[in-house]
């Protein structure tokens, strides 16, 4: 029977790898995901074939509970709320790892009856799993706007505190490894790691959030691999390690797209390094020009090229269908319309692509940053819909700005700029945007969806 289980595990992780390869290409992605899902089903069935398995009712209870919660959550979540959903799913994975480690501790009387490497890997899994669970919950809270999105930081005390928490967690682990059997130690370890997870994610704000979710995803993968080592389970080792490795790469790709390093992101959010970096962009004219939907419609209706720059504001107000309708009307008038997608616009890489694809915007109209940046100079109007930090020229020109060096969309090079925005409040990163004070920029305040709808109405009667 054990050979059969091992063979099934091999099939399962082969399917994971094959499925993941599929996920890297647009055409094969859906099938790849399905393939990996089949692999997972095989791995679960194989595990249940283990001879002498007992507690069937409780196992069924756990599986049913998870399914009953997971399926509706996944089916009902709005496309705009995807990032926090992924954060939440990631978190519960980490939570499962931490709980399993705790049970391993209790089951083996403080690792008295197991090999040393089991102790080490299990304790590693406990720390990382707990960090991942609580960190993901905070990320969820921030994205869901239960918690404030701006960085919450303790300033200088932050780093020493985090280091101290890590030391406490590792210290508890070392004590357990040296033969201390008190259950208080594992509880202390889990709590210290939990507080560490909270403290690490709280100060992170702005466009860094997607990178953090990806990093926590990689963490959970690594902790799953460690649990696999502890339990001598190849399927878990392979699957966990693949996620850990690919997650690390993905995190790196995302961080690179923003010209930020992962250590810098973890060390503190935007503004953490340079508190004085306010609007120091020199003598900027601090007045903004307001416009009306009718004016905006007029400008765009008689333009020859319009570039739409969507951001988180479009996601929040679910404006993607309204944007699609407006774009179709403009095209009907012979205006060339394109959408400029910043790699980290929204709260996740690819967030805008997913939303616009949902609204049936043709794939050819979606342009990535490198493709579109040379074209802004030829555009008559750049329409910014709820995007802020990714359009801030300070990233190019102001070395004192916390986002200096991050690649941005060159919106300011368009002949005129219309910005749809709820209010003059600063973006997620909490910094001012000089673009709004530019001579050629006009602002249309209000909810993105209703603003776009008003412009569309005006276009119809133009």
């Amino acid at each position, binding site marked *: 029977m054990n050979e059969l289980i091992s063979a099934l595990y091999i099939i399962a992780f082969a399917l994971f790898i094959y*499925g*993941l390869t599929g*996920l890297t290409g*647009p055409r094969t*992605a*859906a099938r790849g*995901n399905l393939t*990996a899902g089949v692999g*997972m089903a095989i*791995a*679960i069935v194989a*595990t249940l074939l*283990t001879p002498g398995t007992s507690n069937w009712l*409780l*196992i069924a209870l*756990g599986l049913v*509970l*998870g*399914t009953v919660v997971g*399926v509706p*959550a*996944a089916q009902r*979540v709005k496309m705009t709320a*995807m*990032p926090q*959903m*992924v954060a939440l*799913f*990631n978190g519960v*994975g980490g939570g*499962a790892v931490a*709980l*399993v480690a705790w*049970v391993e501790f*209790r089951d083996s009387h403080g690792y008295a009856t197991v090999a040393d490497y089991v102790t080490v890997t299990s304790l590693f899994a406990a720390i990382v799993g707990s960090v991942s669970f609580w960190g993901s919950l905070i990320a969820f809270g921030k994205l869901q706007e239960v918690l404030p999105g701006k960085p919450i930081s303790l300033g200088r005390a932050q780093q020493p505190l985090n280091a101290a928490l890590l030391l406490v967690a590792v210290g508890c682990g070392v004590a357990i490894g040296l033969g201390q059997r008190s259950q208080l130690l594992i509880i202390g370890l889990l709590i210290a790691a939990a507080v560490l997870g909270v403290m690490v994610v709280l100060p992170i704000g702005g466009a860094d959030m997607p990178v953090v*979710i990806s990093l926590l*995803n990689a963490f959970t*993968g690594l902790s*799953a691999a460690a649990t696999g080592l502890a*339990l*001598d389970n190849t399927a*878990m*080792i392979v*699957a*966990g*390690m*693949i*996620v*850990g*490795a690919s*997650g690390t*790469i993905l995190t790196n790709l995302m961080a690179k797209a923003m010209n930020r390093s992962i250590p810098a992101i973890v060390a503190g959010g935007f503004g953490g390094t340079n508190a004085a970096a306010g609007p120091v962009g020199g003598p900027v004219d601090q007045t903004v020009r307001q416009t009306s939907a009718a004016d905006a419609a007029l400008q765009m209706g008689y333009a020859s090229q319009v570039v739409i720059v969507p951001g988180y504001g479009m996601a929040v107000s679910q404006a993607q269908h309204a944007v699609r309708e407006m774009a179709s*009307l403009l095209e*009907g008038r012979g205006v060339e319309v394109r959408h400029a997608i910043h790699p980290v616009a929204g709260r996740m*890489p*690819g*967030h805008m692509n*997913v939303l616009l694809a949902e609204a*049936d915007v*043709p794939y050819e109209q979606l342009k990535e940053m490198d493709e579109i940046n040379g074209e802004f100079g030829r555009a008559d109007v750049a329409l910014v819909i709820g995007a802020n930090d990714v359009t801030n020229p300070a990233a190019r020109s102001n070395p004192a700005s916390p986002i200096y060096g991050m690649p941005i969309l060159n919106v300011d090079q368009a002949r005129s700029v219309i910005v749809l925005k709820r209010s003059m409040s600063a973006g997620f990163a909490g910094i001012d945007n000089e673009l709004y004070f530019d001579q050629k920029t006009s602002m249309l305040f209000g909810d993105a969806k209703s603003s776009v709808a008003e412009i569309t109405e005006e276009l119809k009667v133009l």
Partner: protein
Amino acid sequence: MTLLANLAILVLAGFVGFAVISKVPNTLHTPLMSGTNAIHGIVLLAGLVLLGRSASDVFDRVLLVIAIAFGAINVVGGFLVTDRMLGMFKKKPNAEAGKVAAVHE
């Protein structure tokens, strides 16, 4: 020996993970993150193994049932969400033609 064999598997799996994600279009970053997210729900197996093995202590049982439920949420939710996201990228020729026609009227 078990440890060394498992470490070999671990290292190889790490390289596979690196190799698979060398070049991915930005568009697919979110679905990919979501897909790998579902895969680490494999920790569910740990809950199954431990609960199935013995777990006679009531508190252990409670912890493990929660762990299995968490893992199942991770797996089921993760794959479903990824599938929904990827569904957005599928071509919908009929729906699209209809909408464009309606708008131009």
